[in-house]
């Protein structure tokens, strides 16, 4: 059976090439794969496309990757006023940004994982989001077409994994992580704890192992956000 467990976060991200397209889980300081992000920064890949809800807080979360110029392009819902390094690059015109409504971001990712080639939703109709997109009217309501959003890698954070890669999450640290897990060629998860196969109740598994390719244990880092 394929061994998915990696001994270090650096080993887990060693083959991420420059120019890669990567999902990053996390919301509001919870559920960010901070150890993987920092390992990627050490590894030095650049010209990356980041698909994420937000763009870090100071040097925290994705902040360090923007600070060191690793990311060229962003698809995000709410980059955030505290994403200082991103905002500097954006204002200087050094980074491209596609803003996506948050729930549509979720569904575009889910669609990519589910073999769905796009969908129509009323969200965004008549707004800047619809510019350049196909519109159709269903039942008298204007809708906008959204294509799926896939990536080569997903960097996610879970609470526990078994050695196969079945995952459970902790409270609101779940957020985007299970969605992103299904839509990447290579899903890399950092977890607080790795447990033997059979010790997670099958009823409790949130992400089944088929979606998980690499597991690495790392003590979680919370970048506490001051509201």
């Amino acid at each position, binding site marked *: 059976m394929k061994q998915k467990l990696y001994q270090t976060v650096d080993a887990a991200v060693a083959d991420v090439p420059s120019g890669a397209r990567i999902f990053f889980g996390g*919301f*509001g*300081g*919870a*559920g960010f794969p901070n150890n993987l992000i920092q390992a990627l920064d050490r590894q030095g890949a650049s010209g990356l496309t980041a698909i994420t*809800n*937000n763009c870090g807080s100071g040097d925290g979360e994705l902040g360090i990757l923007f600070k060191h110029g690793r990311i060229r392009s962003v698809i*995000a*819902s*709410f*980059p*955030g*006023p505290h994403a200082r390094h*991103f*905002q500097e690059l*954006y*204002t200087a015109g050094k980074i491209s*940004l596609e*803003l*996506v*409504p*948050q*729930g*549509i971001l*979720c*569904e575009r*990712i*889910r669609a990519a994982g589910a073999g769905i080639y796009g969908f129509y*939703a*009323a*969200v*965004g*109709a*008549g*707004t*800047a*989001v619809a510019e350049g997109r196909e519109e159709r009217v269903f039942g008298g309501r*204007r809708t906008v077409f959204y294509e799926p959003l896939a990536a080569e890698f997903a960097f996610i954070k879970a609470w526990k994994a078994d050695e196969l890669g079945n995952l459970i*999450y*902790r*409270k*609101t*640290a*779940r*957020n*985007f*992580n*299970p*969605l992103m897990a299904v839509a990447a060629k290579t899903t890399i998860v950092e977890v607080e704890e790795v447990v033997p196969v059979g010790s997670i109740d099958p009823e409790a598994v*949130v992400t089944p192992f088929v979606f998980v390719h690499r597991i690495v244990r790392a003590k979680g880092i*919370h970048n*506490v*956000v001051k*509201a």
Partner: protein
Amino acid sequence: MSSKPKLTREQVAARAALELHDGDCVNLGWGIPNLVSNFVPSEITVFFHSENGILGMGPRAKAGEEDYDVVDAMKVPVTVIPGASYFDQGTAHLMARGGHLDVSMLGGLQVAENGDFANWKIPGTKGSGGIGGAMDIATGARRLIVCMEHVTKEGAPKLVRRCTYPLTALACVHRVVTDLAVVDVTPEGFLLQEVAPGWTPQEVQQHTEARFIVRGDVPEIKRSGR
């Protein structure tokens, strides 16, 4: 411009809380709506929804008891109440966009008399701006109540004929609660329901770009019975 006192942000939130009923599932956005949970009458239970995956969100966590894996959409550590559940962000937005929540309350920059809504970007401001969950929540709301100041800091009306700021969603607002009035969006335009104590409908109209419909005597903004 009248210098009469307006409602405080807390008073606007307290008025908005009167819109909630026992058992309602409710999303509260940034700004004044974030204060509304402080004014829910103790005899009813409201299940607050958070876009990052909570139904049944309770008060903010006490100092020293924070769990940074339990945060609200403003990234503040919170608690949960009995009956709560956690789920992923996609399911959270499915609830909002699919019309499964009873009420959503959002802060606003402009509301137009046809119910169009702008709340995510002020033209000309620096930085990227951000949409977040607002478009999904506004588009799918069964009942969308916007809570905001009646005019901007510069005194410009926020209840307008047509939105000039980037739109969040088309024709989605049902009611607006401001520091001067409670206004409903109707097929005929804004219907003035209540005015702040000491204000006349004519005075509130002077702070409003769109024309109000006024039917009979307009009562004062309701206060909580508590």
